[in-house]
């Protein structure tokens, strides 16, 4: 057994947690899927490698998983940040979740938010060169080409809301698309409905999005909706210094302001 499996086993044996949410083998050798380990002898199911991408923090809020009892989550860096952001937004309480950090050396259970904060302080962050390049490639297009690009991308959207479902920060029990008195977002998956939906999704996540990429991974139409979030995350960082999910602060970019915020576009 490797360190992750051993740690999970210990936690379950000591009854420190009731379930370990982690990654296991999927349908294909290259696929991983979420597994919910509840017995110490099932710990060898747990694996962690490059193919493990889903942000498992989603399950911390899922009612059926919550009902299993206190959980430990196998957490990549974005997952750790998500947990802190969820804490910031009062969705989880301190010491209610154990994080098992993976991908940066040793797996040492982080049992409270302070420990996660401390751990994240030593982890590199920011967008990779490739991610920045993808964003720059779209920004460098002309206005008409950007419109044509998104029009073509969004024409594939079937409004299955997998992006919303996969996002741990999309936890509203009633989403804006379900508000129908009046109907805010057009229901049909036509161009307007798809545009409005994706703009709203991006705006509602602005300054809160951890940029884990789960939305784009989930999209069955392979639309790079994560780029919309990445744009706003970059802007929120540059303009407001907002980096969500690094500490449990009771503020976020769009819930606060500075009198000195830029306003040269306002006349």
């Amino acid at each position, binding site marked *: 057994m490797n360190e992750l499996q051993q740690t999970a086993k210990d936690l379950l044996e000591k009854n420190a947690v009731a379930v370990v949410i982690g990654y296991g083998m999927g349908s294909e050798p290259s696929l991983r899927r979420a597994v919910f380990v509840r017995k110490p002898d099932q710990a060898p199911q747990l694996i962690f490698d490059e193919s493990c991408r889903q942000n498992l923090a989603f399950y911390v809020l899922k009612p059926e998983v919550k009902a299993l009892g206190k959980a430990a989550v196998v957490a990549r860096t974005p997952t750790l940040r998500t947990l802190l952001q969820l804490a910031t937004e009062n969705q989880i309480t301190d010491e209610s979740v154990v994080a098992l950090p993976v991908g940066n050396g040793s797996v040492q259970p982080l049992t409270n938010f302070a420990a996660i904060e401390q751990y994240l302080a030593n982890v590199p962050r920011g967008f990779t060169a490739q991610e920045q390049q993808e964003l720059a490639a*779209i*920004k460098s297009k002309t*206005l*008409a*080409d*950007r*419109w*044509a*690009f*998104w*029009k073509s991308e969004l024409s594939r959207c*079937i409004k299955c809301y997998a992006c919303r479902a996969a996002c741990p920060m999309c936890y509203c029990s009633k989403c*804006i698309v379900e508000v129908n008195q009046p109907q*805010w*977002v*057009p229901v*049909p*998956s*036509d*161009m*307007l409905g798809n*545009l*409005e939906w994706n*703009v*709203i999704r*991006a*705006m509602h996540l*602005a*300054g809160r999005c951890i940029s884990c990429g789960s939305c784009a991974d989930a999209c069955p139409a392979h639309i790079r909706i994560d780029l*919309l979030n990445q*744009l*706003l995350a970059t*802007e*929120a960082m540059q*303009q*407001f210094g907002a980096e969500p999910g690094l500490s449990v602060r009771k503020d976020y*970019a*769009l*819930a*606060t*302001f*500075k*009198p000195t*915020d*830029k*306003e040269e*576009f*306002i*006349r």
Partner: protein
Amino acid sequence: MAEFEPKVVAFVCNWCTYAGADLTGTSRMKYATNVRMIRLPCTGRIDFMLLLQAFGHGADGIIVSGCHPGDCHYSAGNFHARRRWMLFRELLDFAGIDLRRVHFSWVSAAEGAKWAELVNDVVNQVRALGPYDEFPKRLNRQSLEQLCSVEVGR
């Protein structure tokens, strides 16, 4: 053919810009009649969704206006709004929506002349850009002929 007359929707706050526009009228200043005003309590209450809704319902241009920083009736509504606009503009631009159709302004209750000038300027700019036909319209805004020819989703 008659010259294109743009439809401009103005989302304004109750306390400053709406009063400012009122002053424009009571001062008998003339300005473009292309603007349709929608009064909301505060710029902080102007959801970015409303802007998209306006385009979807056939607006060619949009004005959003409220109290100058520091003058908000609710102290900080316009500061919150400003942040939201900063990000929203970036997103619109990234998505390929022409920012020359979306204008933000501070117009106080004393600035009747500024309001007239703002509206005239925006209307002229949008008139030059032409109708915003490429923005998709709500289905109920489409004619029956258009609805029948809609290439349905696949």
